[in-house]
């Protein structure tokens, strides 16, 4: 076996904090061969990003490499001086980050930022740097590179910014590219384009890639080998085929189960013996509950009008769960705010439980009798809880405002609700910053169902959660719907998640619904090109025990 390009042994990284030293990475061994693509998969707090920062020695001031060795191409990175490191960084190994817009200097033209790296590493001179930077922009598929050379990050989309970051990283043809959650926060279609680009450029340059991600599906599609990390330690490391065919470690098994597949049902996300599994029984569909008719929301002046929601009509029946899927900026959040009566529509009718609620202003609807029947679970569980209120106070609030209950009745109701959402009673007196993400999500759900609503809008309720927590929350939501006989309007960018919970799905693009139909049918026979593109872009982990290459999103097989 050849000497690996990168060899990490016993890497331990510590952070100095107020409460003493915290070990973020413990005795990690990783090696990457030339041209290989390795994935590090783990949930938040697994230490996967810290590992990559340690590789480049760009840890925060508080962090330090406590133990272990990092050898890259024969150079001891752990012991190298700052000068050697400067030469390695960007020249031999480089990195791309999540949140690409923040990763670029906001007040320097993007072309200049690419030039800086090339000039620094002696690949260009002041005279010819510009031409080379423009070539680099071309290589990352940016249209009109001559003009884009002068652009500032704020003038470019998130996907474009990530291409610029890639151009900076690859400008000096490094041997190793570290990609730290490179597509988090980007739309699925953009994600696919960016990932395909990375893989293609890596193959072209015979470059090794280290992909750090929370998404097992993404890693499966693009990597040769996967390392699974949990709480700073490696729990399993194997080739993709082996890992998916027979995951050894219980954590890997749990993670794999929790990651939605093309064919999985919501209950499949949890182990068979988990009592939190939802039953998969279909609910009977009743009469129409919500009818949306020609709903419009326009922003800007009459001359310069932008329609965020453009003539939207649909019906939601009692007991039904309807999905609304689209990428960022498609108008799905505006739609939910209008239905929720937090925002006044420009025109159109909303008939809820027989009365037209669009004519009641958002301000007055706050104390309307129907307010209690129309509730919502928010996207970010942290942001949706008042930081100065205990969990109990948050859950009580709707009942205090809209129900006449005495103290004792309130306490009883809160206990019942907490039990219903699986929140241990002793957590009720904690404040949001003392709760985990999953616990906060439960508080939000308990608050939303406190008034026994008929319609619950779920606005990306699991987008901020780790997959294992997502699995639990999705099952909880499925069970609650059955128990309380609620209807759901599930809003998400992720067709894969929506599928698990919805009877019917609508696909939204630029303020309009482009396709609508029963979930199974829409997924198996999409008729609109945009739906097909969305479906195509979702990275799926291979169905267990079958060949990984069956996945539709797998890129053209790259040269190894």
């Amino acid at each position: 076996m050849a000497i690996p390009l990168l060899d990490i042994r016993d890497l331990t990284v510590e952070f100095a904090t107020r409460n003493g030293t915290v070990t973020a990475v413990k005795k990690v061994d990783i090696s990457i061969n030339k041209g290989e693509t390795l994935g590090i998969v783990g949930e938040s707090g697994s230490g996967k990003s810290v590992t990559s920062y340690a590789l480049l020695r760009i840890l925060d001031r508080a962090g330090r490499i406590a133990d272990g060795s990092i050898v890259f191409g024969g150079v001891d990175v752990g012991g190298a001086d700052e000068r050697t490191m400067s030469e390695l960084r960007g020249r031999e190994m480089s990195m791309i980050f999540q949140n690409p817009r923040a990763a670029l200097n906001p007040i320097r033209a993007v072309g200049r930022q690419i030039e800086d790296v090339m000039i620094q590493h002696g690949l260009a001179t002041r005279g010819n740097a510009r031409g080379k930077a423009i070539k680099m922009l071309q290589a990352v598929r940016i249209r009109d590179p001559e003009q884009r050379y002068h652009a500032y990050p704020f003038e470019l989309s998130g996907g474009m910014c990530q291409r610029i970051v890639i151009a900076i990283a690859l400008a000096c043809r490094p041997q190793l590219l570290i990609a730290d959650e490179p597509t988090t926060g980007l739309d699925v279609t953009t994600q696919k384009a960016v990932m395909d680009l990375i893989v293609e450029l890596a193959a072209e340059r015979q470059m090794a890639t280290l992909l750090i991600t929370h998404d097992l599906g993404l890693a499966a599609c693009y990597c040769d080998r996967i390392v699974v990390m949990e709480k700073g330690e490696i729990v399993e490391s194997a080739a993709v085929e082996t890992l998916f065919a027979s995951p050894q470690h219980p954590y890997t098994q749990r993670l794999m189960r929790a990651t939605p597949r093309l064919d999985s049902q919501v209950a499949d996300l949890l182990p068979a013996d988990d009592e939190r599994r939802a039953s998969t029984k279909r609910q009977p569909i009743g009469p129409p509950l919500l009818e949306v008719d020609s709903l419009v929301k326009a922003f800007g002046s009459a001359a310069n009008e932008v329609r965020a929601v453009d003539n939207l009509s649909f019906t939601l029946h009692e007991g039904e769960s309807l999905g609304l899927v689209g990428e960022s900026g498609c108008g799905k959040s505006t739609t939910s705010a209008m239905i929720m009566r937090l925002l006044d529509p420009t025109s159109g009718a909303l008939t809820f439980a027989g009365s037209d609620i669009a004519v009641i202003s958002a301000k007055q609807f706050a104390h309307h009798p129907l307010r209690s029947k129309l509730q919502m679970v928010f996207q970010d569980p942290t942001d949706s809880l008042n930081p100065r209120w205990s969990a109990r106070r948050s859950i009580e609030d709707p009942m205090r405002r809209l129900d006449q209950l005495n103290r004792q009745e309130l306490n009883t109701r809160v206990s019942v609700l907490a039990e219903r959402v699986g929140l241990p009673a002793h957590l009720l007196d904690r404040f949001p910053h003392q709760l985990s993400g999953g616990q906060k999500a439960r508080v939000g759900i308990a608050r939303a169902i406190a008034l026994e609503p008929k319609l619950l809008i779920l606005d990306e309720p699991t987008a901020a959660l780790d997959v294992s927590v997502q699995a639990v929350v999705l099952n909880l939501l499925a069970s609650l719907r059955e128990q309380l006989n609620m209807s759901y309007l599930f809003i998400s960018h992720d067709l894969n998640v929506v599928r698990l919970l919805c009877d019917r799905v609508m696909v939204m693009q630029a303020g309009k619904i482009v396709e609508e139909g029963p979930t199974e049918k829409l997924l198996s026979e999409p008729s609109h090109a945009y739906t097909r593109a969305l479906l195509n872009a979702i990275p799926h982990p291979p169905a267990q025990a079958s060949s990984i290459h069956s996945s539709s999103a797998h890129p053209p097989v790259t040269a190894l």
Partner: protein
Amino acid sequence: MTTLTSASTTKEGALRRFVRHLLYVMTDNPVTAVAFALFVLIVIAALFGPWLVPYNPLATDSSSTLQAPSWQHWFGTDHLGRDVFSRVVVATRLDLMIAVTAVAIAFVVGSTLGAIAGFYGGWTDRITGRLMDTIMAFPLFVLAMGIVAAAGNTIENIIYATAIINLPFYARMARTEVAVRRQAGYVQAARLSGNRDWRILAFQIFPNSLPPMMVQISLNMGWAILNAAGLSFIGLGVSPPTPEWGIMVAEGANYIVSGQWWLAVFPGLALMLAVFTFNLLGDGLRDLVDPLRRT
């Protein structure tokens, strides 16, 4: 890295947690502890000053004028033979009173205006914004001079002038703090729970905006003291023989060039110490309320 958060999930009372955090902030930065101690000292001087001092601050004594500091007169005596130490201590109340009242007025009016502007936006926001811009268009100390000159040379007018020039700070800050929270998830959730606008503003947004504003209050208090003292230094507001730091420095200024430094230096130091205390206190408060530093 988020393994850090798990450390905080031990059960503790809110008060105990606060005290623990307070102790942490104090021990982490001894300067903050010093500031808290000085603050207590200043408050004592303001409340009980007249009963603590050895001499009557107004009593003149022609037999002992312009004496250098000694065991008898710790801070020396002035040109009329008055005891400088007694005058400096007694002056604390007036100086603090002017600053506290001015800042209180500025805070109540400013933060109310700002909170309403930030919450409702639109015309309310534009009108208050223009109003504050107009105040801010003047160099603030100069505006205070103009106001006192126009409205009359009294202590009340010093207070009003100081309040007016502090108003924009609070209004702007309240506006920003409220505006960033206006669309927060928990505010939306409160609407869904049936809260009316005023309830949301009063119980959801305002309590969460208060901590950063407390820091500003403390920092502004120092500035308000400086301003008021500056006004009396140029002869506005307080008139002799009332003991007040600004006017004492002004009186002592004439004797600096002839070497009688204690007349101006001690009231000046007292003034500096007071401002210094409030500034340090502001930094301490910032550490105290900053949730990032709280584990």
